[in-house]
Every structure is written in structure tokens, then in C-alpha cells.
């Protein structure tokens, strides 16, 4: 071991002194998520004792005006109520720097500003760059940071310099590789934190604890006992103000490629050799993504469903169809719903279908993982007015109410032998007495500490794109071409998606879980 004092010292919660530079500081993400998350970290006393937050964007703003704007956002979006004294202390560490992401000169000024702030604090701060910008700026910003001397060698420097980027990480395999290649010209892979906020959710982190800290589940976690798995991401909202972006990407790229495949990977990984080494978990996730059987072009129509919502009702309110949304191309073939049947082709998971679905304008907002166990033999209950025994379902709800439930069969009280499903529930609020922190809080804290366990590595991104490549190719086939393009189905807004999604499961006598 290089550092003889490191062993056993893994209790550090408060990160070292850090300067966080947020590019795209006037944007929605900064106001709704990043600053409220940092404020909540300060509230819980997790922020470094010495930190600065520098907001950088094109708009000219004074430090004071920037703070005022942020105060309004934090009031609106923080999960904690505003404590005036804390806000005063917290906000005194926030600064604003006007910056053009494509101009090296701007970055030189940024360096001078950081150096001056650091000097005032008389402490060497780590530099953490958060790119809350359009992906088109990722390359130029990374290059200019390097050009301005704001990136240091991770092995040799006294301070760490890291880059956080938000999805999308490319729009297909080639562009993801290109992006990775551009970023690595300026930063080493270990300095790049690709954020997938789903990995910051408590229930998603709990997947590993649940699997590996409970003696009763891991022995069942394989094809001998698990019948199938469903991962559902359902939103009741439409595309809203993201129409322009969404119509270019679709839900497969926007949600499945990142959030849902990450969840799938965590569900299916082999035990990593350590939970302290970020790469130990990420290596295992890559193995899972690599083991998912690639679809042949002819499988795509059979194993995937895509659809667009039409007008309908969502929670009693009328909702317009996708094609009527502002900013959607009249000829749009973009899917707002995607469902896939996948299979992890390895020893543990052979023959277990994994159904993944994601959609907008569905009946309600819910993200859930459900693990359906194989049915018990029914012979004992035949002729006893029991009907078909329900499957035991282990459901992990990721949002809105993070928690875990287990559906079991039970005999209702009374003189007859009958069977009814009942649910054992665990919710974070009820069990731990506190609501779960926002995912960004955990991810920002980890990134300040330099822990990349909950961030996505370049090879994970590339494997995920590689997996979806045949689907994207088939879905993008021209209409009326030699090879038939899989149909774009429709579904009424406020329902659970197109009928074809149910058909996807029928072949194996499965049904989507009613959410």
C-alpha cells in the first residue's frame, strides 16, 4: 500500500476544500438541482469547511445578483426549509464569473478568479468542474480548461481537478466514443465523473446492500428462482419545454440507455470484490452489459416496442398528443414509449427475461423494479378454490416513494383455506424517520470526495450504446424500404402504453405489473 495511513480510514464524510465551478450557471439544472443540493449538504454539515462555488455563464451578472436569483430557487426547490443564517454563510461562498465556453481567454480569467479566491482562503482547493451545459459545449470547455492550465495530472498534482458531465453521453455508439475521446484529451478517465442521477437515489444504492447484506435473497438471485424481472420508468408528464431536445433523442436514448440499463446492471452484477473500490463495481457492471444478448436485426421487431402518445386524459385532465406538442416535427417518428425484452446471457441469468419499459404521458409517475419469483407448485391447492397462485414479487420503488415491498401469499382469516396476496412494505420515511436526500446531494458529495463508484465509466456508456445500436438502426430505417421498419404504435395519454407492449410479454405468459 502506498499510503500506510489509508487502511481502515474510510469514515470521511466531509470532503476536502473544493472550488466547484458550474458551467451553465444560469440554467435550469443549476437552479433546480445543483444549488439546492449544495445548500442541503451545507444544512446537514457535509460541505467542506472551505469551499467556493463559482457560477459561470455568458450572461453578465454580479455576484450579488447571482446569489439573489439562487436564493429564490433554493426557496422553491430545496427539500429543507431555508435557514436565513445558514443561507447567509453558505451564499457568501458563491461567486459569478461571466464566461464564453468557446473562448480560451475567458478560461484564463476564470483561472485568475479561482486563484484569487483560493488565496483569500489560504488553502489549496480541489477544482471540480460541473458542466451543466448543452453537450455541444463539453468538448470546447474541457479543451479550454486544459488550455488555461486548470487541469492537473491526477497522479502528480497537489490538488485534484475533476470534470462532471450530465447526459446525454453521445446519441449513439460512434458519438459516445467520439465524446470520450475528446474528453480524454484533456482529462484522464479517473477525473471524469459522468453523472446518472438515478445512481444517486437511495433505493438504487440499496440494491447492492439489499442483495449482498441479506443472507436470504442472494441465494435466490438467479435463474433457478427468478422467473422474470421488470424495470419500469413511467412519467405522467409530456415533453413540455424539452420538446426540441426530446424529439431528436426519444425515450430509448433519454432514459433506457442510461438510467434503466444502469439499474439493470446493478440488479444483475456478481458480487464485486470490494465496495470501496469504484472500479470493482463498475467492472462488474460492464460484464453484465456485455453479457446482455445483442439483438439481431430480425429480433428487433419481436423484442422491442416503440410508440407515441396520442391525446387522452392524465389524472382526469385532458392531454394533447405528442404530435400536437409545440416544437415537434410534423413527420416525427420519435418514440415516447419504449419496451424491450432483454436477456443477460450468463450462467446466473440464463433464460430469465428482463423487461424494460419507459414512457411519457403514462398513467402516473413511478419508477419501479420488480423481481418476479417462480411460482410455487399449485398441486396442494388444486380444487381448493384458490385459483392461480400469485407470484412472489419483490418490488423496489425508485420514485416517487422510495422503498421495497415483498408480495407474499397468505391465508385470510376464516374457516376455509383460501389464498390472498399481501404485501410487506419498507419505506425510507417510515423506517428511518427521515426522507431520502436528493440524488444530486449524494452525487455532489461523492464527487467532492473523489469517489466515482456511483458514476458511469466510459466503457459502461459504450457497452450500453452497443447494446442498443441494432434497435436504433432498425427504428431509423426509412419507411417503405426493402427491410420493414418496426411499427411506431400509438397509445392514449394516461394509459399504460400501447397494446403491443403487453404482447411483448404474452409469449412467455407474463404480464406487466400493474403500477
Amino acid at each position, binding site marked *: 500500500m502506498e499510503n500506510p495511513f489509508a487502511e481502515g480510514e474510510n469514515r470521511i464524510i466531509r470532503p476536502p476544500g473544493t472550488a466547484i465551478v458550474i458551467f451553465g450557471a444560469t440554467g435550469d439544472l443549476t437552479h433546480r438541482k445543483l444549488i439546492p443540493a449544495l445548500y442541503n449538504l451545507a444544512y446537514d454539515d457535509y460541505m467542506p469547511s472551505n469551499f467556493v462555488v463559482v457560477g459561470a455563464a455568458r450572461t453578465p451578472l454580479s455576484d450579488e445578483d447571482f446569489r439573489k436569483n439562487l436564493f429564490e430557487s433554493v426557496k422553491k426547490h430545496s427539500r429543507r426549509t431555508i435557514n436565513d443564517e445558514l443561507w447567509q454563510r453558505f451564499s457568501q461562498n458563491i461567486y459569478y464569473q461571466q464566461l464564453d465556453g468557446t473562448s480560451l481567454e475567458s478560461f484564463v480569467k476564470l483561472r485568475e478568479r479561482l486563484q484569487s479566491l483560493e488565496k483569500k482562503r489560504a488553502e489549496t482547493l480541489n477544482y471540480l468542474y460541473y458542466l451543466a451545459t448543452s453537450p455541444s459545449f463539453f468538448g470546447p470547455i474541457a479543451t479550454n480548461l486544459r488550455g488555461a492550465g486548470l487541469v492537473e495530472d491526477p497522479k502528480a498534482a497537489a490538488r485534484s481537478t475533476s470534470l462532471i458531465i450530465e447526459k446525454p453521453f453521445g446519441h449513439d455508439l460512434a458519438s459516445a466514443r467520439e465524446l470520450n475521446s475528446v474528453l480524454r484529451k484533456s482529462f484522464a478517465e479517473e477525473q471524469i465523473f459522468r453523472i446518472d442521477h438515478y445512481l444517486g437515489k437511495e433505493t438504487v444504492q440499496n440494491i447492492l446492500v439489499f442483495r449482498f447484506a441479506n443472507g436470504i435473497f442472494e441465494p435466490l438471485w438467479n435463474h433457478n428462482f427468478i422467473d422474470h424481472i421488470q424495470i419500469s420508468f413511467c412519467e405522467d408528464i409530456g415533453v413540455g419545454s424539452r420538446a426540441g431536445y426530446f424529439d431528436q433523442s426519444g425515450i430509448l436514448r433519454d432514459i433506457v440507455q442510461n438510467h434503466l440499463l444502469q439499474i439493470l446492471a446493478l440488479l444483475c452484477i456478481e458480487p464485486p470484490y470490494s465496495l470501496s473500490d469504484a472500479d470493482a463495481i463498475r467492472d462488474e457492471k460492464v460484464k453484465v452489459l456485455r453479457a446482455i444478448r445483442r439483438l439481431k436485426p430480425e429480433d428487433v421487431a419481436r423484442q422491442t416496442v416503440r410508440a407515441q402518445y396520442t391525446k387522452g*386524459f392524465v389524472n382526469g385532465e385532458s392531454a394533447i398528443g405528442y404530435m400536437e406538442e409545440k416544437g415537434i416535427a410534423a413527420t416525427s417518428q420519435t418514440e415516447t414509449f419504449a419496451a424491450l425484452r432483454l436477456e443477460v446471457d450468463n450462467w446466473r441469468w440464463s433464460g430469465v427475461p428482463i423487461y424494460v419499459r419507459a414512457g411519457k404521458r403514462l398513467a402516473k409517475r413511478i419508477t419501479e423494479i420488480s423481481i418476479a419469483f417462480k411460482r410455487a407448485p399449485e398441486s396442494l391447492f388444486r380444487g381448493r378454490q384458490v385459483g392461480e397462485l400469485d407470484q412472489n414479487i419483490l418490488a423496489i420503488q425508485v420514485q416517487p416513494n422510495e422503498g421495497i415491498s415483498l408480495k407474499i401469499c397468505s391465508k385470510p382469516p376464516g374457516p376455509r383455506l383460501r389464498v*390472498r396476496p399481501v404485501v410487506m412494505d419498507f419505506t425510507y420515511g417510515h423506517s428511518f424517520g427521515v426522507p431520502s436526500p436528493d440524488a444530486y446531494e449524494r452525487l455532489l458529495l461523492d464527487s467532492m470526495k473523489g469517489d466515482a463508484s456511483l458514476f458511469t465509466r466510459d466503457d459502461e456508456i459504450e457497452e450500453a450504446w452497443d447494446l442498443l445500436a441494432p434497435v436504433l438502426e432498425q427504428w431509423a430505417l426509412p419507411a417503405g424500404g426493402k427491410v420493414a421498419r418496426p411499427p411506431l404504435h400509438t397509445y392514449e395519454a394516461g394509459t399504460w402504453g400501447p397494446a403491443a407492449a403487453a404482447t411483448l410479454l404474452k409469449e412467455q405468459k407474463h404480464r406487466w405489473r400493474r403500477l
Partner: protein
Amino acid sequence: MVDTQYSYTPTALGKISDTLTSIFAELQGEDAVYNRSANCNLIILVSGPQRLPALEQLIDALSLAHPSRFFVAFPDPSTSTVQASISARCHGLSKTEHVCSEVIRLSAAPAAFAGIPSVIRAHMLTGMPTEIFLYDPDVDIALIRAVAPLADSIFLDSQSFSTNFQKLAELLPLTRTVVDFSWVGLGVWREELKLGVNRCAAGLGRPQVRSIEIGFEGPSAAQPGALALLFAGWVVNRLGAAVLECGIDNCIRLCGADGSVIELKFVGSRSDQTERLSRVRLTLEAAGKEFTVEMLRAKLLETTVSGKDVHRATRPFEDESFEGRVRRHFFIGESLANYSGAVRVALKIRESLQSH
């Protein structure tokens, strides 16, 4: 007994979950815990607001037997958009612990009715069984069709469908399971017939039924209602017989599984009460000997099996009120195994009777 009934609180559609939470926060007392306890989603479809007062009794009875998240949906011409109001029903498990069902009332003018299924979908308890309760037979079939895909089973009382029995035929394909409280109420008659036939056929092989007579009493003596039809449907279906032709006086000729002719006759008598069976008589033949199994409604259900010997048996009727049958289904359960077949044949019998 339901001991706490929280009055209906109007709420915006987007606030249904929050309002439920706040109701339960208000209910909590220093000395008692009120648990939200629902083991299913129960969607009650009602034909109009005029039925709501009577429905409250049913909700009380159901919440005792079957704690649920209730959705009560009905058309209300006085409102143009979907309206929601929320209530809770609790009963004590002990002095300190109460179990509560949640009630979400949803109403809309018929023109806005299409929005109601979406509210139900948005608030269903995840992964729990979902059931539809057809409170009255006049519920718009379009609404039933819109909601049916959400449910595993439909509860109804075919007795209330006596004037619209054909509607049952439309409902059957919509769901995997129909729980008919008339069927539940007939359980004691089916059980006694089974035991009676056991007695006369003991050691003689499968008996051949020669005639079936079903007596009923109710507001109309002219034609059998749902109960008599359902029972006849069950008997004929179990015999594997087919309806041949209708004769006069509610008499039907059946073709038995062995090709023999079986006579089915309904005998009605008028009474002011709701329809009920008064008598069932089967004539059978086994090993060349003739038997009769006769069941009569008296204070008790009296069964006489006559052949070489005469056997008599009595059995008390169970609570035949609607609430009683509901309780019986949820507390004790009832076989639903042959229900669909019975309804299909009952519909054929009715068609045959009407065509005459």
C-alpha cells in the same frame, strides 16, 4: 362495525394523495393508531348520485370485510369536469389500533366521463389486486369497458340484472373472474343438491336426470329471474346437456349428454319480496331405479331424497341479505369454478324462453 367515518373532503385531482395523507394525519389520536390498510383496489361503478346514500352502507360492510382503496365512480350532470372527494372508514382491531379503508369518490358529467379511468389509474395501489364492483346494472357499459382492463375480477349481483340479464353476457369476456353475489347466495342450494344426488346414486353409478323443476317466488311469476336462471344454468351445465326447444309454460326440453331428453320446468309464484328459490326437484334414474331429490324452502332448507328409501335432511339458510352474501364471500369464500358455464347456459335458457 365501522367506528370512524371521515366526512367527504373535496380535493383537486392533483392533490388526492396529499389529501389522503392529511386525513390520516388528522385521524391519529393520542390513544390510538389509525392504519391505512388496503389489500386491494376496489372500483365501485354507480349509475348516478341518487344511489350514493345506499352505497354508503355497502362501503361500510366492505371495509370491514375487505379493507380496500375504494374508488366510487358515477356520472353527475351537475359538474362539467372530473371532481374528487375523499373519505376514510375505520374500525377498531383493538382499543388502540384501527384499520382504515380509503374512499375516493369521482364524478363527472357524462361528457367528461372519459377522464375518470385516468384518475383511477393514477391512484391505484401498486401491485395489488384490483376489483370492480358493479353496484347497479344501469352503469354505462362504456365505462365498464374502460375500467375493466384494470381489474382482475368484477363483483356484481346478477339478481339486480333481472331486467337486463343479457348484460351479463357482455361482462363475462371483460374479465377473468366474475364474483356474483347471487351465485354466492345459491351456494347452500348447490351444496344440498350435491349431497342429495350423492345419497341416491351411492353405489349405483352415474344417474341420469330425467326432469328438473325449479320453483321461484318474486315480483314476477311469469318468467324466471336471474336466480332461477342461474341455478338452472348450473344444473344443466353440470349435466352437459344442451337446450333443445322451448315448450309452453316455462318448460324447456334439453338434450342430455347421453342423448336422452330432459325436461326443465320453471314454476313461479308471486310475492312482494325479491326473487328467491322456493323449490328444486330433480327426477333421476340410476341402475334402472327412479329417484327424486326435492329441496324445499321452509324455515330451513329441507331436502328429501326418495327412492327405495326416503332420506330427509335440513340445513339452515345463511344470511341471504346482500350485505350477508358480501360478508360470506369475503370472510368464508365461495367456489366460482362453474360460474361462467352456468351463466352461459342461463343466457341460452332465457333466450329460449323469450323466443317462445
